[in-house]
């Protein structure tokens, strides 16, 4: 991080103070009348994030089969400007969406991010992901208990001419 | 550009004809020549990173007692340093050809 000359008020406080901040309602107690619809379980899917291969990760996260669907619109660049910051977003016209997840096939761990979509939240997410190399990126939408997906290839390489 | 391609070709061109294995004296002479050329290039503020790394590789090989490799690396470093000197002197006027007018 930054050098220590001239303390950097915001970052230093964050790094030191972060742990001290009391977080209300930490942990996984679902509070408020969570709607009955079976959202993916509330706990952080530790296992799924550890798995290397995409199919295993999907099974660990959802335990169901997936079918591609053109109702899932995945937006990803053709050639990533930089593998460290790749803008990826998904929208869908499917109904009763409860979860959206992103898988990067060639990454050390396929599952990149998973989002729980409570009732009343629009089924669309934009985020920035890291990609180790040229890879397929798959977005999976859980709608009304069934899994739909879309996949695109993103070319990734380093920049510059040498060094 | 891959680093290895130009270096490999360079090595092929500069194979020392000496048949017997190089000894420390050969290395010291080759290293001194390379270092002088490298200092001159640095003095012209046109040093190449590969000159510095090849010079270091020569020293490392010599420290390890492998004087054949050390001499080859020192000669290569000298060649690189001389190339950067040649580049600096020729560019003194050559740059004008590229200028947008």
């Amino acid at each position, binding site marked *: 991080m930054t050098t220590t000359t001239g303390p950097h008020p915001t970052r230093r406080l964050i790094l030191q103070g972060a742990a001290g901040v009391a977080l209300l309602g930490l942990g996984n107690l679902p509070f408020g009348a969570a709607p009955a619809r079976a959202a993916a379980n509330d706990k952080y899917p530790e296992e799924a994030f550890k798995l290397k291969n995409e199919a295993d990760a999907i099974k660990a996260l959802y335990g169901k089969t997936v079918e591609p669907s053109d109702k899932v619109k995945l937006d990803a660049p053709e050639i990533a400007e930089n593998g460290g910051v790749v803008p990826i977003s998904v929208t869908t016209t499917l109904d009763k969406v409860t979860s959206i997840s992103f898988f990067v096939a060639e990454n050390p*761990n396929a599952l990149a991010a998973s989002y729980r979509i409570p009732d009343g939240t629009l089924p669309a997410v934009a985020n920035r992901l890291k990609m180790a190399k040229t890879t397929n990126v798959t977005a999976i939408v859980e709608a009304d208990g069934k899994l739909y997906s879309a996949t695109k290839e993103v070319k990734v390489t380093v920049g510059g001419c040498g060094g | 550009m891959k680093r290895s391609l130009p270096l490999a070709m360079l090595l092929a061109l500069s194979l020392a004809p000496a048949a017997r294995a190089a000894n420390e004296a050969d290395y010291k002479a080759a290293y001194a020549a390379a270092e002088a050329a490298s200092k001159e290039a640095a003095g012209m503020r046109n040093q190449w990173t590969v000159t510095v790394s090849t010079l270091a590789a020569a020293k490392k090989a010599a420290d390890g007692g492998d004087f054949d490799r050390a001499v080859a690396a020192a000669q290569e470093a000298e060649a690189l340093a001389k190339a950067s000197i040649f580049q600096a002197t020729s560019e003194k006027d050559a740059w004008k050809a590229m200028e947008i007018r």
Partner: protein
Amino acid sequence: MASSIRVRSTSNGDITEVQALIQHPMDTGLVKDSKGEVIPAHFIQQLKFECNGKDVFVADWGTAVSKDPYVKFSFKGAKKGDDLKISWTDNKGGSDTTTAKIA
């Protein structure tokens, strides 16, 4: 204290669009520093958005989320002036929280 969370939430009609940028290294644990030592994994695992006492968005993140992570989503059922509470926890037990007014 300046929070690590920058959030922009704008409501037009019934839909509120939320964008968040969080200052966090998101280290994967697979990268070595200049001295050759591995930088240990340090990444946000869960990010929660709550409004009017209800979770409106929950993100479970792995190591593939970019440094200074960004996320955008929209939800219904809130209006200008409502409080949007954002909180994250990372794999080292670090956390931060902030509350923003919907514009």
